């Protein structure tokens, strides 16, 4: 306990010092930081007795003290960061070691009324819009999300006014290779007004062998009829700790989808909460996990149906090699009087080595009767008959295995419309698990 108090003090002091020294004009962000710091101080680091952390120890994140790195700017761009780019990125925001890289990024964009910018710029140019995006969510329960919020200062901001449609994706790239064990806390804010639509891709890439901590926050507000697609491709270095918290809410007939692809990190955790606040919402939270070595990934999902006639779907697929570990902890919550809910949840894991491990906790918590909710979980090996079939057609054993593993994981991104992004995920999945 005392040890944890030390850790907390370390970050709280750093947050206070930063807030004091930061001269930038960032009113709304300052408030976010204050709330974040307060929540961080209030919440304990969870033990594995905590249901949401039953299979994931926070030790890797707390045993080391990562040094807060205030956002700045830099001009050079490592090749490894470039690899994350997509040709069709319409708008790109690039950070290397937490510093904004203007030369690699697109300047603030205004197209059909849509506004996309680096958060530090947006707070100056669109202070009210940022303000609106920040404070409409439930009190944070995840201590690391609170930690990230306590340092919130940069990242990306997307504002889609009524009927605005961005055809090509907004892409936010975070690349880390620093030696000095930094702590980074990027923030992504997406405000989609009535009937607007966009796709936002986040890439988190890092160099192996370098410890660092990412405490990222993302918030999405989809107004009536809006359609927001989010994709997160995470391939942090093998010594990195990556803790991401996404909070989304949907208004009447709005759609929010996220595809969470996890391939890296010593410890990586996604904590996605989608709350349907008005009737007719659709939420999809899918995940691809492909791991090797000592990697540990934990996906926690809560689909909160707080209004009637909503639909939701979760599909997580994991291929696990080496000593890797995967945790799925998903919940469908149907609140009283949220009738006519259709919710689906599925988690499938393939264990490809003798020492990989899978823990799964798919949950249904239903307080209304007129619902159709189902879930399933499977853990197993590749279908032997399918393997045999391929081999009998002349495909080598290793290749056949690869083909099947690839098909297995690809299934979770089948509904992702952007072909290039989907293919990138498929390729990374193939490379990450079936060496």
């Amino acid at each position, binding site marked *: 306990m005392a040890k944890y108090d030390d850790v907390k003090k370390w970050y709280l002091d750093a947050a206070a010092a930063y807030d004091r020294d930061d001269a930038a004009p960032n009113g709304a962000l300052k408030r976010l930081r204050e709330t974040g710091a307060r929540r961080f101080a209030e919440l304990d680091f969870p033990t594995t007795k905590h249901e949401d952390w039953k299979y994931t120890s926070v030790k890797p994140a707390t045993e080391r003290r990562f040094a807060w790195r205030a956002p700045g700017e830099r001009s050079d761009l490592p090749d490894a960061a470039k690899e994350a780019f997509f040709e069709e990125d319409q708008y790109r925001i690039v950070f290397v070691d937490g510093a904004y890289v203007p030369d690699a990024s697109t300047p603030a964009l205004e197209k059909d009324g849509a506004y996309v910018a680096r958060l530090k710029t947006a707070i100056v140019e669109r202070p009210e819009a940022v303000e609106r995006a920040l404070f409409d969510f439930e009190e944070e329960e995840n201590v690391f999300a609170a930690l990230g919020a306590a340092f919130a200062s940069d990242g990306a901001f997307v504002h889609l006014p009524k009927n605005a449609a961005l055809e090509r994706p907004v892409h936010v790239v975070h690349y880390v290779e620093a030696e000095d064990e930094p702590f980074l806390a990027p923030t992504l804010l997406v405000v989609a007004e009535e009937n607007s639509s966009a796709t936002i891709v986040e890439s988190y890439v890092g160099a192996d062998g370098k410890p660092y901590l990412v405490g990222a926050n993302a918030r999405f507000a989809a107004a009536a009829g809006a359609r927001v697609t989010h994709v997160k491709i995470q391939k942090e270095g093998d010594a990195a700790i990556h803790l991401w918290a996404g909070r989304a809410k949907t208004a009447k007939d709005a759609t929010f989808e996220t595809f969470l692809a996890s391939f890296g990190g010593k410890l990586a955790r996604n904590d996605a909460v989608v709350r349907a606040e008005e009737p007719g919402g659709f939420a999809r939270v899918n995940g691809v996990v492909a791991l090797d070595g000592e990697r540990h990934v934990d996906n926690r999902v809560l689909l909160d149906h707080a209004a009637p006639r909503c639909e939701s779907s979760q599909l997580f697929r994991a291929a696990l090699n080496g000593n890797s570990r995967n945790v799925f902890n998903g919940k469908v919550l149907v609140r009283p009087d949220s009738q006519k809910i259709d919710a689906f949840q599925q988690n499938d894991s393939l264990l*490809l*080595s003798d020492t990989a491990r899978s823990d*799964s*906790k798919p949950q249904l918590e239903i307080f209304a009767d007129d619902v*159709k909710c189902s*879930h399933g*979980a*499977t*853990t197993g090996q590749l279908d032997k008959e399918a393997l045999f079939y391929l081999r009998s057609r002349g495909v080598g054993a290793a290749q056949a295995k690869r083909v099947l593993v690839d098909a297995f994981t690809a299934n979770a991104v089948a509904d992702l419309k952007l072909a290039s992004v989907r293919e990138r995920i498929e390729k990374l999945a193939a490379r990450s698990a079936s060496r």
Partner: protein
Amino acid sequence: MANDEKAELERLANEEYKYGFVTDVESETLPKGLNEDVVRWISAKKGEPAWMTEKRLAAFRRWTKMPEPHWANVEIAPIDYQELSYYSGPKKDRPKSLDEVDPELLETFEKLGVPMQERAALAGVAVDAVFDSVSVATTYREELAERGIIFSSISEAIREHPDLVKKYIGTVVPPSDNFYAAMNSAVFSDGTFVYVPKGVRCPMELSTYFRINAANTGQFERTLIIADEGAYVSYLEGCTAPIRDENQLHAAVVELIAHKDAEIKYSTVQNWYAGDKEGKGGVYNFVTKRGLCEGENSKISWTQVETGSAITWKYPSCILRGDNSVGEFYSVALTRNRQQADTGTKMVHLGKNTKSNVVSKGISAGYSQNSYRGLVKVGKNAEGARNFSQCDSLLIGDKCGAHTFPYLEIDNPSAQVEHEATTSKIGEDRIFYLKQRGLDEENAVSMIVNGYCKEVFRELPMEFAVEAQKLLSVSLEGSVG
């Protein structure tokens, strides 16, 4: 009461006075509170040997250091354990005859088809004169004894088969297991002991007179069943009739041990008093049931139909240690009014090629909350483990809740584990179809629910299955519409 019995009680009463408390001899109820003296008194009352007293005391000491469990999905008013009495004999305010019994209860017996001669006993009418089942029991016991099967109360077994009891009791559910297991190990009242020797198939369901005995086993029941190599036994516990019972807290422990090639089938129908419509009163049923598939090719199968109790908290489990051993769990849990049930199973795969199968059917009505909580754990060395779980929930009415919390922990790559669950409202189009064929709403619902539970009922011995179906229909009355 016979004279010598009275004398014995008086002696005990005086003896306990020595320990510093008084007992009302007539009602034979201990004053409230739990301490070492109470534990000693219970042990002495049952004439237990010193080792058993010691075991109880050790469990008690353990218990004092344990925190009360924190309730996952159950709302519960705090229980003051020092406010309870830990031993109670027959109450003096029992009804003297059936005429004094609540007519509603009698009506339920009627609907369930409980035989006349059993009704009085179940309704709590002062026992002795009422039925002659004791002799029935004796006949059975003789027949069983011929085959070497021991079937007795656990108190009797402790006295007469101390070696067997000593060898097995607490090995599957150690007192340290959980708060209520520790409590039970310290103060258990009575229960059943079964031992089936090598190669013997028990020729009958061990249930015949248990409907009656169940009413008298007390609030801290303890059961121990051992099937030696190649043995088979099927045991039925509980009964469909709502048992009159004043005890609010029931904390039973059941341990099963199946040796090589042995099979144990354990079936339960639980219908303790569930409290009134507003949720006042009712039994808290906190049970620890666990079976150990100790030997190769052994099999343990749990089947339960749970309709009673204000709060139910139980997870009949299987430890699959022997290679090729099999664990099964079939459950129907129905909650209505303000009932809360949190039930499920744990299947722990340790041996090679072990298999488990889980079928759970939850039905929630009224304002009740019904949760399935289950664990499937495949250990590092459990090569070739297989599990399939199917957990369905049915909702009747829009004020109740149905929850599914499975945990799948897989540590061996050769495992095949599959969990499936659905939650839905009872199908209106099905109800309409049946109505179109002339059935009324209540009957239609009961038929659909019984159909939905068929997979579980199929696992029950014939007679029991019929009773269970009736019980479900009776329980659903008034839940519809």
